[in-house]
């Protein structure tokens, strides 16, 4: 089975994505949502919180599993997707669109270069 890996963003090995333009949007890949199954709960930081590249920023729970979410880059959380609190299934339905999680204003643009390209991520999930 192959999964959609849009080329207009970068990825973490732990399956989070980061869009191309700041403030960056963060979510999880289509592969990740499929692995998790039905998402029932998403725990996110508050607006104004800071996150650090590679460290946990929240938790995603599906019916069967609990997983940590990792920040692709460091910076300030300038928006969170509050729709996920009432409709967490958006992560399954539209992971790259309405299922986004955070917007981050980066503190160090260069951290973005450490992330996987779409091709590299696609290789990882094959």
């Amino acid at each position, binding site marked *: *089975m192959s999964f959609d890996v849009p080329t207009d963003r970068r990825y973490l090995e732990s399956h989070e994505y980061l869009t191309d333009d700041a403030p960056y949007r963060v979510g999880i890949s289509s592969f990740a949502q499929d692995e998790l*199954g*039905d998402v029932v*709960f998403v*725990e996110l930081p508050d607006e104004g919180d800071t996150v650090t590249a590679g460290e946990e920023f929240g*938790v995603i*729970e599906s*019916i069967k599993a*609990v997983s940590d979410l990792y920040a692709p880059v460091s910076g300030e959380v300038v928006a969170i997707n509050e729709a996920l*609190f009432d409709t967490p299934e958006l992560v399954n339905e539209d992971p790259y669109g309405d299922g986004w999680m955070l917007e981050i204003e980066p503190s160090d643009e260069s951290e973005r270069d450490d992330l996987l390209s779409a091709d590299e991520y696609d290789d990882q999930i094959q």
Partner: protein
Amino acid sequence: MSLRTPPLRETHADRGAKFTEFGGWDMPVEFDSISAEHEAVRESVGIFDVSHMGEIEVTGPDATTLLQRLTTNDVTALDPGEAQYSALVREDGVMLDDTVVYRLPDDRADELDATAYLFVPNAGNDGDTHDRWVDYRDEHDLDATVRNATEDWAMFAVQGPEAPALVDAVASVDTETFGRFDAGYTTVADTECWLARTGYTGEDGFELLCPWEAAETVWGAFDEAQPCGLGARDTLRIEEGFLLSGQDFHPEEEPRTPFEAGIGFAVDLDTEFVGRDALADATEPTETFVGLELLDRGVARHGYDVTDDDGHVIGTVTSGTKVPTLERAVGLGYLPTSHADPGTHVNVVVRGQEKRAQVVRPPFGDD
């Protein structure tokens, strides 16, 4: 140790199922989505491959005595073609497993020249259970044959409001003649199967045992049913407040008596069985199995602490999930009887944060 595989492992994989290790077996956890599968069982019909369940056959002149001594319920109450829920306990009354005991019909028993039973231990417990039965038989010089038939029998559960109509269409049986916990032989796809009106989803339905080598044909006969994995089986049984062996009770990690676990109805203290005297002194436990409903956002999971209003830990969640059709996070676990009344406010500690919850008497979907 390599995992045991059900006979339809490849069939399920080709269908796109995801797998998980359960009780030493490599079992399908999800075919389409746990939500869709859960809903199919509540609203129409689903089929589960539960071939990881054990099967132990007990036959011979002393088969009844042996079962009576090693299970908590009164096996002499069973007529041929009936099933009974029961528990297996240690000398100290702690539950080792729960099980369904089937008494096979007399014609089959005659063939075997004895009373014949078959019972179904949980996944991974078949070996220990078989050995326990053999040891007890030998120690007490009983005349019975005990056989671990786990890999002779595939087992499927057909569950949901439309299960009787589907079984009527597929099997050589009129389901109207089958009351709850009735069982008997039937033919499905030219294969003789053992069929019982039992299940573990809270819905009407049947469990079906067929020879391992005929599994593909028999499974295929039910192609109208939604294939379901262990994920949906878990959310369905949690919604009903049914115990999961090894998780809601475990002889070392969660030692519980049947009375604590809320299945005192499966204990007949008027019979003689191993653990009977310990259980006679334990009919009014200080802790009991309850349902929990979270009022705050969050999901209760196995191992999370339960606290009282003062923040004292008073119990643990043994099973928890967010039930797909309920839109609520619910759990099961043990609390002191002082905190076990429905409506009692407690907290579930989710990743270090106390989330408000209340005690509920399952099934959760019944309101």
